[in-house]
Structures are given as structure tokens and as C-alpha cells.
């Protein structure tokens, strides 16, 4: 008895009949051969032009997190960098159209430039662009001699005669002078590049062709950013590196401290037609592992695209973005990113709206890095600080995350369920009188926290969230 007969005998019911009719349409077709992802395209990379007509790949290889022999990111690990793996990844990148590599003297605890130099020297100089930075952040490198030495050393380590892109590193951050006094960001900039004549020196090097493009990277105080742009008429910046992603676009304060919104930064740069380098497109990986509902929203639209790919598309969505730097540790990161930009599909209005919604929700939800050590306890006002954080983080991780209640019944059912789980769970794990609303921000806990958590700020945020939930405003 073959399968059809068997089913006929067995069935007679509607189910069996349906199965048989399906069976007739596609007799024994095998579909799951694997290799569903297909080849990573080698000739589809999107390129954008800089001010001098160079075609730069949209994906820039960031060399801040090169892999170590232990297979981890060299940013945090002390172990030796895995040169073989790095060579392999660079070769792969170049073969698939990536042509920009970005590094800096301090990356990977000072080992990045050397390693990049080794890997790239195996290729023709016209196959790649090199981007590095003048990282004279410490006061012992503020002298003209030390700064020049740092620049020359970069050329040496990278084994090149010229660098394609050089940036004044970390404009907008404050530094400390020899006495250990903190200097404001503007003063720090002055000491690093004006007082010692380094800015003039770099302009001179650009004239000489040892620096083909001169720019700066920005973090922190927006005054310095504005000031540097005000010098644009005189200096003619060739590019500027900013932190840009769909959280930084309008929520920079919530996710990266002092930074100005990248919407503002990008706007100022576009106004002046300055090509933009993007860093932190994934915000240190945070945008690759989002909360469940956000992932659902993305997968409903594009089931096969990775969560990270949305962040990359957002990062490159504006026309003046020249390249998006991604610090890649693993081959899979590289492959996924190459796919995303081969070619780049711009986001439409609707998709941008979705990302904006996710960002709005996300900023209400970063987990609190509380380890439950209880050093902050007892709170003089009776709060159960670790209990509050634990419940909050648990709900975050388990996806009991309440997002904007949108249209369909199914969604609102899930919404109600999550809302209930959060609120009932909150009352269950923390007695009412020990909940976040009782925090008076006396600040006695702050100095006790080894994680440096701004406990009153976090409690206020959680309380605001609870209030919004109770008021039905989320």
C-alpha cells in the first residue's frame, strides 16, 4: 500500500483529502537542501563618492574589535590578536568590495594599526583606503613633537606612504592636564591642536599629499563640533565621523550621554556638503539584540533580514553618508553586513517610522546593569533597590515589554498580557511601600554602587514607566 492509498483508507475525512490533493500537486518535492542564504555577492557593493571622486564602499571595516586568538574582541581582551583570522577577513572583505579600513593608534590596546598594516600590505595600495586618527588625547602627547611622532608612527605601522583619511580623534571630550585637572572640551581641543600648531601641521601634510582627506571624529560636547564646523571655510574638512544610528538620531541623550542628536550633527554636515563617516551603527551591539516586540516588527516585514541589517540600512540611509564603520570580530558579522550593502536598499517612510517607534520604546527600556550585590542596601527609605531592578530586567529579558499599543486585536491582547505581567509581577516581587515611587533621590546609594549605576535616576525612570503603564499611556 503506497502513501496515497494509505491516506485514502485512513482518511476519508477532510483533512486526509486535503493532504492528498496537496500531495498530487507537488509529488515528493525536496525543498530543504540548505544553503538558503546563497552566496555573499562580490560585485554588488554600494559605493559613494567623497569630495575628490574616490568611490568608497558603504561598509567600512572598523578595526577596533579585531579578533584575538581566543576568538574574542581585541578591544577588551589582552590576548594576542589573531593575525591569520584578520588576514582572512580582510581578504574576504576586499574580495567582496569593501575598500575602507578604519583604525586608530589606541585601538585594540594599541595593536590595531600594526595588525591592519600587516594584513593590508598583502594587497595593492590602490585596493584599499586607510583611515586613522591622531589620538593625542593624553596630555603627555600634547606637545608638537609627540603628536607628530604619533602621526609618523601610524604611517609606519600601517606600512603606507600616505593615509587616505586622517581624523582629529575624539573632538568634544574633555582631557586632563599634567596636574590632573579636568579641562573643558574646548580647552582640551585648544591644547591638543591649536597651541602646539598641530592643526597647521596636518593641513600642511594634506597639501603634501600624505593625508588625502582631513577630518575629525566627534563625541560629547556639541560646542566643539559647532566650533570646528565654523572653521570649515578656512580648513575645508574632507569628512567628519559621527555616532549615528536610529537611537542616536533623536535620543542621543538617553543612550550616549553628552552627545548631540545625530539628526542635528548630520544636518549641519549636509548643509556644508561634508561627507559623513558613521560610527556605532549598532550602538555597541545593542541594536543587534533588541527586545522581542521590535524583533517581531522587523521580521514581519523582512523575515530573512537580520535585526542588525535594519540598523545598517538606517545608518546609510542619508545621501551624504560616505561610509558606515562597523567593528567586526567575526566572519558572520562581515558577511551579514556585506549582504546588507550589496546593494543598499534605502528605507522607505514606513520603515523609518517603524524604527523611530522602536527607538522611542527602546529608550524607555535599557536594562540596568545591576548585579544584585546589595551594596546599596539598606536604603534609608525602605526601598528594595535590587528587587526593583531585578524585576525590571527580568521583564525586559523575558519580553514582557510593553510597547505602543497599536491597532490589531492580537497586538492589544499581547499588550494587555505583558502589561499585566509587568504590573502584577512588580507588586509581587516588591511590596508597594518599597517600590521606586518612594525614592526621594537622596543619593546615598550612588556612592555604594560598584557598577556606577545612577540609582535614583534609574529608579525615577522605572517609576515613570510604571506610571505610564498604569495610566495606559504606553
Amino acid at each position, binding site marked *: 500500500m503506497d502513501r496515497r492509498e494509505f491516506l485514502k483508507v485512513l482518511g476519508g475525512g477532510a483533512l486526509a483529502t486535503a493532504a492528498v490533493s496537496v500531495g498530487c500537486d507537488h509529488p515528493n518535492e525536496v525543498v530543504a537542501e540548505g544553503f538558503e542564504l546563497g552566496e555573499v555577492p562580490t560585485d554588488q557593493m554600494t559605493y559613494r563618492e567623497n569630495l575628490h571622486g574616490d568611490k568608497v564602499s558603504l561598509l567600512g571595516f572598523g578595526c577596533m574589535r579585531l579578533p584575538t586568538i581566543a576568538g574574542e574582541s581585541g578591544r577588551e581582551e589582552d590576548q594576542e590578536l589573531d593575525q591569520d583570522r584578520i588576514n582572512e577577513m580582510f581578504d574576504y572583505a576586499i574580495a567582496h568590495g569593501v575598500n575602507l579600513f578604519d583604525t586608530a593608534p589606541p585601538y585594540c590596546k594599541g595593536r590595531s594599526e600594526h595588525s591592519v598594516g600587516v594584513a593590508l600590505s598583502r594587497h595593492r595600495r590602490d585596493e584599499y583606503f586607510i583611515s586613522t586618527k591622531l589620538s593625542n588625547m593624553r596630555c603627555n602627547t600634547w606637545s608638537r613633537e609627540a603628536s607628530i611622532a604619533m602621526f609618523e608612527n601610524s604611517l609606519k605601522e600601517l606600512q603606507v606612504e600616505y593615509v587616505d583619511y586622517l581624523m582629529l580623534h575624539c573632538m568634544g571630550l574633555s582631557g586632563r592636564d599634567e596636574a590632573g585637572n579636568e579641562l573643558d572640551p574646548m580647552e582640551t581641543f585648544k591644547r591638543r591642536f591649536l597651541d602646539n600648531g598641530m592643526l597647521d601641521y596636518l593641513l600642511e601634510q594634506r597639501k603634501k599629499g600624505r593625508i588625502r582627506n582631513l577630518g575629525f571624529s566627534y563625541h560629547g560636547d556639541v560646542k566643539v563640533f559647532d566650533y570646528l564646523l565654523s572653521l570649515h571655510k578656512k580648513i575645508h574638512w574632507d569628512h567628519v565621523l559621527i555616532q549615528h544610528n536610529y537611537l542616536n538620531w533623536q535620543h542621543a541623550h538617553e543612550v550616549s550621554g553628552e552627545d548631540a542628536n545625530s539628526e542635528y550633527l548630520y544636518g549641519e554636515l549636509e548643509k556644508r556638503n561634508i561627507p559623513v563617516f558613521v560610527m556605532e551603527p549598532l550602538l555597541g551591539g545593542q541594536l543587534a539584540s533588541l527586545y522581542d516586540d521590535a524583533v517581531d516588527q522587523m521580521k514581519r516585514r523582512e523575515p530573512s533580514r537580520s535585526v542588525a541589517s535594519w540598523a545598517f540600512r538606517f545608518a546609510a540611509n542619508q545621501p551624504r553618508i560616505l561610509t558606515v564603520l562597523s567593528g567586526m570580530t567575526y566572519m558572520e558579522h562581515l558577511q551579514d553586513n556585506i549582504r546588507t550593502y550589496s546593494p543598499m536598499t534605502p528605507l522607505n517612510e514606513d520603515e523609518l517610522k517603524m524604527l523611530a517607534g522602536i527607538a522611542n520604546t527602546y529608550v524607555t527600556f535599557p536594562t540596568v546593569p545591576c548585579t544584585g550585590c*546589595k551594596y546599596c*542596601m*539598606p*536604603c*534609608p*527609605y*525602605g526601598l*528594595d533597590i*535590587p528587587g526593583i531592578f531585578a524585576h525590571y530586567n527580568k521583564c525586559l529579558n523575558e519580553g514582557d515589554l510593553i510597547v505602543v499599543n497599536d491597532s490589531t486585536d492580537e497586538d492589544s491582547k499581547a499588550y494587555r498580557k505583558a502589561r*499585566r*505581567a509587568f504590573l*502584577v*509581577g512588580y*507588586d*509581587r516581587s516588591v511590596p*508597594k*511601600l*518599597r517600590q521606586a*515611587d*518612594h*525614592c*526621594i*533621590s*537622596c*543619593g546615598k546609594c550612588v556612592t555604594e554602587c560598584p557598577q556606577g549605576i545612577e540609582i535614583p535616576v534609574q529608579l*525615577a525612570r522605572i*517609576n515613570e514607566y510604571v506610571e505610564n503603564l*498604569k*495610566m*495606559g499611556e504606553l
Partner: protein
Amino acid sequence: MLRKIRIFLATLFFLGITLLLLDVTGVLHLYLGWMAKMQFLQAVLACNVVVVVGLLLLTLLFGRIYCSVICPLGVMQDCFSWIGGKVWKHRFHYTKAHNWLRYIVLALFVVLMVLGFNAVAVLIAPYAAYGRIASSLLQPVYIWVNNLLATAAAHFDSYAFYSVDVWLKSGVALIVAAVTFVLIGLLSFRWGRLWCNTICPVGSVLGLVSRFSLFKPVIDTEKCKGCGMCGKKCKAMCIDMEHHKIDASRCVACMDCLENCKSDAIKYKFVGCAKQETEECDSSRRKFVVTTAAVTAGFAVSAQEHKVDGGLAVIEDKQVPKRNQQLKPAGAKGDRNFAKHCTSCQLCVSECPNQVLRPSTGLQTLLQPEMSFERGYCRPECTRCSDVCPSGAIKPITVAEKSSISIGYAVVVKHNCLSAKGENCGNCAAKCPAGAIKMVSDPATGHTIPAVNENRCIGCGKCEYLCPVRPFSAIYVEGRTEHIQL
């Protein structure tokens, strides 16, 4: 058959209203709220013409079905009477109506209500009395069971149940409820519906109407063998077996006699407007002695237990501040409107999810709800008391309306204030939902103190609740006699 239908409907209403009074989830009133709104006295107070006219018509048509089906206190008495019947069969006999007592009590009730002594008058209001019993005696048991289930559910990470605190809202309310329960319980155990036919003001009013009801139980003298079973089992004690008459003003249309008559001599049928012959009977007036049971208030107020596992500071209980003016929930409009309508049925007290409402102990307002904020505050998104109030004491309001009704205003007690002593606080100002509190510099000390903008304060009590100073908060809410629209 009719009796079975009556029992079925009565069970439905009784369970429905009981659940409504016990509910802690705030969902049931959506489905069962109408049962409370059908209560006669409450509907009269709420000027709910449809319900009042409907109930009067119902009574005019079918007799006092209300008393047997809709009134929870009536059904509760039936339960006791039924148990009494198991113990002591054939304990009833016909008595003449104590009309003098009935109408004096009714008149007194009306006069007290009109004069504004509602708090005293409603002690005998049937639904309100049952509400107090359910809220004070049954709800704690209900919540304990719920909490057991919640603990069990928590083991399985289920959020189907959640735990609710059991707390003694008012000792007076508990005692009043216990006394009512014991008194009415004993009365009905021995004398069936005596309460309903002598004391209960609603029973008296409906009795006036049911005299003329179109449908009545009637004894067929042809068939009657004079066994007297109907009268011996009539809990309303209204069947005059000698004269084969049934006093329709006291009959609660329970239909028991229809089934008790072995010779099928009693029929519930249309009698039209036939005049009721009220004949004097010689049976001696029985004095009924009301035995007041000594109430041993066996409630142990266990001090709230604080677990101190080394990591948590002990939290001292807050105490109720002295207020010049009681706080009434938004929707009450003011103390006068509230006092005029409230029957102290405790439905709002049972419903309040924030542990704000509790029965008052003031003489003028005894057992009527008032607000205080030791355990929570009147949350802006909650309108449950106004949703459930059956008597129009707390009129229905929306969340939006609530946000602009000021029921009181916060008062700062500088002497208690942490901030005034130079501590870094300001929690009241930080958390005020109306933005009515600002921290200002105290000219005397240079420290910051909270200052209240009375024109913005809605009296929600969040500041009082969240003030870290214990047992008396450094900021508390004073009530307004008339609520104002901001």
C-alpha cells in the same frame, strides 16, 4: 415550579451582588454593576426613575418579588430561615401585621434621611446592610483565598491571580457589620421574614404597593383541607389559615406555600383589582424580644509584619492625619451631596483598588466612606468608586473629568519636612501629577520647602502617600466641602 424559578433567580442575584461586593479585580462591575443599581433605596437616592418605576410596577404586578429575588439581605435571611427550618419545623404561625411599628419605622427613616441623618438611617437599609456584611466580614475571607491562589500561581509564573492586602478598614464598620449579621441572622433563624415585614423601610414601601398587586397567591377554599401546613411554613407569617386569607402586603412572593400545600389548594394567579380584606385577627400580639448578641469581636489585628532580612530597612506604618474636612472621592461633588445620597453600602470601599477608601467613624458620617492615603493614593486613571456607586453619592465621572476636579488641597507641615531640615528630598514636588507643588527657598532657613499651588492641587494624595516622613507625613491633603472644577 414557580418556587424553583424564584430560588434560581435569587441565587443568581445573591451570588452576583456578593461577588460584586467582594471583587478585587475591578472587572466584575462591568458585568454585575447593574445589580447594585437595581436596589430600590439606592435607585431612589440616585433619582434613577427607570429603576424605581420598574420596581414599583413589578411589585404592582407580581407582589414583592423584589424582596425574594433582588434584595441580597432578603435572600440571606431566606438562607438562615431555611437552616432554621431544618432545626425547628413548623415554627411559624400567622400573626397580625405590626403595622404601627412598620410605618413608624418607615416614617422615622424618611424623616432622618430628609434631615440628613443618613448615616444612622441607613443602618436598617437592606442592601447597604448586606454590603457592610460582605465588605467587612466576607471580603477578608475572599481575599485570603485569592491570595492563596496567587501564591500557588506565582509558583508557576502565572499572573492569573495577584495578591491583595487584607487590612482592617474600620473597627466600627466591622462591629456594625457583625452586629447586623448576628441580629438579622438570629431573627430570620427564628422568625423568618419578620425583619422585612416590620423594620425594613423598603419592605414597608413595597408592602404598600403589593397590597394591590395583580397576581397573588390565593387559597382555594374548596380544595383546602385545613391542614395548616402552608401557614406553619410561611416565613412571612402572613397566611391566615382560619380565614383562608394571605396578607399580600407581607407576602414576599416566595411561592413556598404553593409547594407546601399537599392538596394543591394554593394558586398564584391573576386576581385583578379585587379589594384585599384585611381582617382583624384575635391572635395575641406577640412581643418579640430582640436578643442582642454579645459580639465578641474576634478579630486579631496582627501588626503588619515586616520582614527584615538584613537588607531592608523597617518601614513604620503611617498614621491618619487629623483633617478639618473629610475627603470624598471625585464625583461626590461635595459633602452635602454625598451625605444626602450615600447609604454606606461599602461597595466603593470594597472596590477601591488603592486602599484609599474606608468607612468613616465620625458620628455624622458613620460608615460612609472617606479617603486617606496611608496605603496608596487616589490614582488618576481610576474611577471605580464612581463607576459602582448605586445611589448617586459618587456620580459617574470619566478619567478626564477626574483630572480637573479638586477634592482637596495639600497642606505642608514644615515642622515634619525633611527638606526644610536641609535633607535632599522634594519627592512630593517631583511626583505630583498635577504639577501643583514647587520646591522654594525658605526665607527663614535658606533650605528648600515644598509650596503648594492650591489652584492646581486636585487632592489626589500622592504627595501625602509618598512623603518619606513617618508616621505623620510632612504634607497632607485637606478636604474641600464642595469639590471645585479646575
